């Protein structure tokens, strides 16, 4: 637990008690930093393509897009280690893509094809990539919160030194299973971090209409748990905070709530008229777009030239286009697939 240089204070950070200071998170290489940027752009493009397909009736069921929230997944994942288990709700495309799901199988899943990442059996809400410790994609609000606890429990039991990042929406804080999990996590000292992606709405219900109080990190207070709130537009802020909490979880097996303020640009799922918010509100948030913020920064830092950035973005566009084509040209699962994967 060697303390190096002090980490720079994070503007606007609130918490139930003071965070430990383990210093700044290890620096990312130029390449890593650009890769996280690329993943955020990939997610955005992927979602936009999905949006189009949904509008033209090619995707059935629900489809929850991550536009506007990209720095939350990217920053937290970059703050953890590649082998830290992660698990999330149904708004899971970002987490999947950032944890190695190829855009092709990802898109094929939206179309319910045999080549989909879960063979067309799960759809948009159930992206899994267990090889890379991405444990889904879960549809029942809050239902994944004990599972995340369990993944962390397994890591502790097996002495694997992993921390589980369990993502959830602001609306999910009101599910009982989450609270049972909080108590167990704190009581048994389980290395799990509950990342609340507070995008201000639970479907059409604004936070102040669903939660008392609206500062969701305070839910930790009832358990003497560390609860932290930060703004989620800045990849680096999210990464630094996540790293600190992950270090704490790793060193001391102590869980935490990390509430990250963010915003979704699109409707809750696709068929959402969005009467509950104004165009102006959406526009305001779009002005502090997480991708733009990181883009500006890496340009300023001289990590990449404007030209190379354009090239990167073109490559991403092509990749998404190819993914869509891959999906379109993929076959549906054979009827026999109905009966496989039920039992191991």
């Amino acid at each position: 637990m060697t303390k190096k240089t002090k980490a720079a204070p994070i503007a606007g950070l609130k918490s139930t008690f003071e965070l430990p200071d383990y210093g700044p998170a290890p620096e990312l290489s130029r390449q890593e930093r650009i890769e996280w940027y690329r993943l955020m752009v990939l997610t955005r493009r992927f979602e936009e393509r999905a949006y189009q397909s949904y509008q033209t009736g090619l995707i059935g069921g629900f489809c929850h897009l991550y536009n506007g929230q990209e720095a939350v997944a990217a920053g937290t994942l970059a703050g953890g280690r590649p082998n830290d288990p992660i698990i999330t709700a149904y708004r899971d495309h970002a987490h999947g893509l950032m944890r190695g799901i190829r855009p092709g199988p990802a898109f094929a899943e939206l179309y319910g094809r045999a080549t989909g990442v879960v063979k067309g059996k799960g759809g948009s809400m159930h992206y899994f990539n267990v090889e890379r410790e991405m444990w889904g994609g879960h549809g029942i609000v809050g239902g994944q919160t004990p599972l995340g606890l369990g993944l962390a429990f397994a890591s502790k039991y097996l002495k694997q030194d992993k921390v589980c990042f369990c993502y959830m929406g602001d609306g999910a804080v009101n599910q009982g299973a989450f609270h049972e999990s909080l108590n167990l996590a704190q009581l048994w000292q389980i290395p799990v971090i509950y990342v609340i992606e507070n995008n201000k709405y639970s479907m059409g219900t604004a936070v102040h209409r669903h939660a008392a109080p609206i500062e969701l990190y305070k839910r930790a207070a009832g358990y003497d748990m560390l609860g932290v709130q930060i703004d989620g537009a800045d990849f680096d802020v999210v990464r630094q905070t996540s790293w600190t909490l992950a270090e704490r979880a790793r060193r001391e097996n102590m869980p935490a709530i990390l509430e990250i303020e963010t915003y979704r640009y699109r409707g809750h799922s696709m068929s959402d008229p969005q009467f509950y918010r104004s165009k102006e509100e959406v526009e305001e948030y779009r002005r502090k777009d997480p991708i733009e913020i990181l883009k500006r920064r890496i340009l300023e830092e001289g990590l990449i030239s404007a030209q190379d950035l354009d090239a990167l973005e073109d490559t991403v566009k092509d990749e998404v286009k190819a993914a869509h084509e891959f999906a379109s040209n993929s076959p549906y699962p054979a009827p026999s697939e109905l009966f496989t994967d039920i039992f191991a």
Partner: protein
Amino acid sequence: MAKIAYRDAVRDAMAEEMTRDSRVFLVGEEVAEYNGAYKCSKGLLDKFGAERVIDSPISEAGFGGMAIGAAMGGLRPIVEFMTWSFSFVAFDQIVNNAANMRYMSGGQIKVPIVFRGNSGGGHQIGATHSHAPEAIFASFPGLKVVVPAFAADAKGLLKTAIRDDNPVLVIENEALYGRESEVPDGEYLVPLGKANVLQEGADVTIVTHGFTCWTVLEAAQELLKMGIRAEVIDLRSIKPLDYETIVRSVRKTGRLVCVDETKPFAGVSAQIAAEIGRSCFDHLDAPILRVTALDVPMPFSPALEDLCMPNQSRIIEAVKEVVG
């Protein structure tokens, strides 16, 4: 008789009963400002105000249980589950607190509450969101369960349910919300526990309920082309269940096919087959066949989901088997 959409029938039932009785209120996720995830409560917030049309946090056990307590305390709540699948996080509240309260209090308490919402598969919403829970809830004494298939029943059964002094579970279906069918003019009620013969026929009895009524009626048309006249019975009410109407029909046809969207193991069709197999033992000319959802989690892919549901081709096959 006007033709209206099922969702409007649901809305009208709630609006009429809320107008009639100020103790009736609606609580659920997105029921107020959003007008309901499936727009079944359109306009109710404007009409009855935020004290009677209440948007809830995602806390099914919390608001479901709260509503049970409110019913004990003299109100007549309608709880909307956005989808019945989500009622599983409130399972204990429903099957213990709603179902047993009157019994355990030696009759001191009544629990006039309605739980209602969308259910079932066919919409690519996957294994966790597509449950058809009617057999499960019907297995608990103390609960009544109805599954309207047509707008007229959606309205009439729901109104009766709201007036009933006991917990009534009304299981609706997304696939039905947009379908229009005829609804009687003026005020009317449909009694709980009475099946409806949708179509008469002498060759085979098909018993079904909910969305599959529509599938079965279509299948019956196909069967007619093959010269098979099916009698189609819509159960409407799963508990209490109107065995009498089934028995009467089976005595005539000697053949029974049960069709429904619950799973095969101990589903609604199993209960009917067991009961009719006994009571009509001497009248059956063929084994009772069941056409249900397949015994697999509901897959997302439309290619697989269609096969999982009790579809026309499986129904026709089963009928041909018992008739042939």
